[in-house]
């Protein structure tokens, strides 16, 4: 695998199951058994009800674009060429996450808030795959 120049996440105990699932190209979230809500980013306690009965669950990987920006002046060393798209995707299960939109022209006129998207994983190291999203 060629050297990846971007930041590579280092998991913590509470986030490791997320990254382990991502390596299998699965999107997995914590599901709070106390209040029934999904949690992202992963935590030791539910930020909604503060319960600690959190079960990992593979989720659909589908969602919609909640908002986005087209970055012209990018992060130093970031491997996606500018312009690239950072988006907040609202997952079908509720939580929002930051990601990149791929498979779409990086043109503000071509990207619509509310457009359906689905997860696609990019292997960036032997241990880490990043969840990005493409039009569904």
């Amino acid at each position: 695998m060629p050297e990846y120049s971007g930041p590579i996440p280092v998991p913590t105990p509470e986030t490791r199951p997320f990254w382990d699932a991502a390596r299998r190209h699965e999107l997995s979230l914590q599901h709070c058994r106390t209040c029934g809500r999904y949690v992202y980013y992963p935590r030791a306690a539910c930020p909604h009800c503060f319960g600690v009965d959190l079960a990992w669950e593979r989720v659909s990987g589908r969602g919609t674009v909640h908002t986005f920006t087209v970055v012209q002046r990018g992060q130093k060393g970031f491997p996606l060429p500018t312009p690239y798209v950072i988006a907040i995707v609202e997952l079908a299960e509720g939580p929002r996450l930051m990601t990149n939109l791929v498979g779409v022209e990086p043109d503000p006129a071509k990207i619509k808030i509310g457009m359906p998207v689905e997860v696609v994983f990019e292997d960036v190291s032997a241990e880490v795959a990043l969840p990005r999203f493409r039009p569904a």
Partner: protein
Amino acid sequence: MSRDLRRMRGRVAIVGAGESDEHGKLPGKSAFALHAEAARNALADAGLKKDDVDAVFSAGLWMGSETAEYMGIRPRYVDGTQIGGCSFIAHVQHAMAAIDAGICDVALITHGESGASRVAMPGTRFGADSWRLQFEAPFGLAGPPTGYALAATRHMHEFGTTSEQLAEVAVSTRKWAMRNPRALMRDPLTVADVLASRVISWPFHLLDCCLVTDAGGAVVLTSAERAKELPKKPVYVLGTGEASTHVMVSQMPDFARWDAARMAGERAFAMAGIRHEDIDVAELYDAFTLVPIMALEALGFCKPGEGGAFVANGRTAPGGDFPMNTNGGGLSYTHSGMYGMFTLVEAVRQLRGECGERQVADCKIALCHGLGGMFSAAATLVAGTEVP
């Protein structure tokens, strides 16, 4: 609103305000040198000496005590609260409480930042296992412009806010800067100029973004009783509020609404017991043109979504009926990285009538409102020349 907060209205005053001797690009001065210059100037303005200071407030890990050490102060009250650029406005609330409780007498709130030259800047790097590095940085979040742009896109989508309306903020603010000899950007600016400047992170153009400078500022607070013995007209703390809702922009509860500002503002107005129309001048943190628009909505000067229309037609420019960011703001005056201090300094100067060509007539009540992180935190101050 507890009775206690109402009781504190006007019990504490800002008695000194100052800035570093110079600002801009200053590779010959460390962040701490900028702190010290600002603190010296603020204390001289207050008619107080360094040894009168018994409480030091500065934003950042160890910064309360590090700035105290650098200046040779041994405070008995230290506060390093760091909630981003609005920290210093939050410090005013903390200092008010501490002075009123009798824990300290003279509070120095100090800011110095080598934002452009990065000389002796305190560390801000996050570990590879931090939440930022795990859940935002891998997607190329390239600093504040990209994060704030996410809110701008959503605001435009929900409310129809336009790039022209955003640009209007930069243009009106520049008109104030042209009346301030100390402002860094003083050339005339048009909406067309803003829209023609290169896109940094859509929908933000270069001229929607604040400056990046080296600068310092400081204010000194004490009790209203002691303030009466000091040379300058006291600026009374009438209302304060602070709030924090998240840190990472991806955790922003509502991308089109600044919840922390609403929370901080409601409390500050309730404590001050004033109406919006009583505000004579507003100093609203303007890291990006969008920020004052969302502040005006969150603080209740207009309804959600009406901020773009509110600032149209030069309403916030000299001659408009809503004087805003009269020093030239972070967009045209200076922006060291944590701009909130400069809202305090300018409000004090306006309330004292020291602002020359940019002086707002009959200025009795000022609003300072700061931004922290990625719309993460907010702090609000209502200050006035009299206690209503």
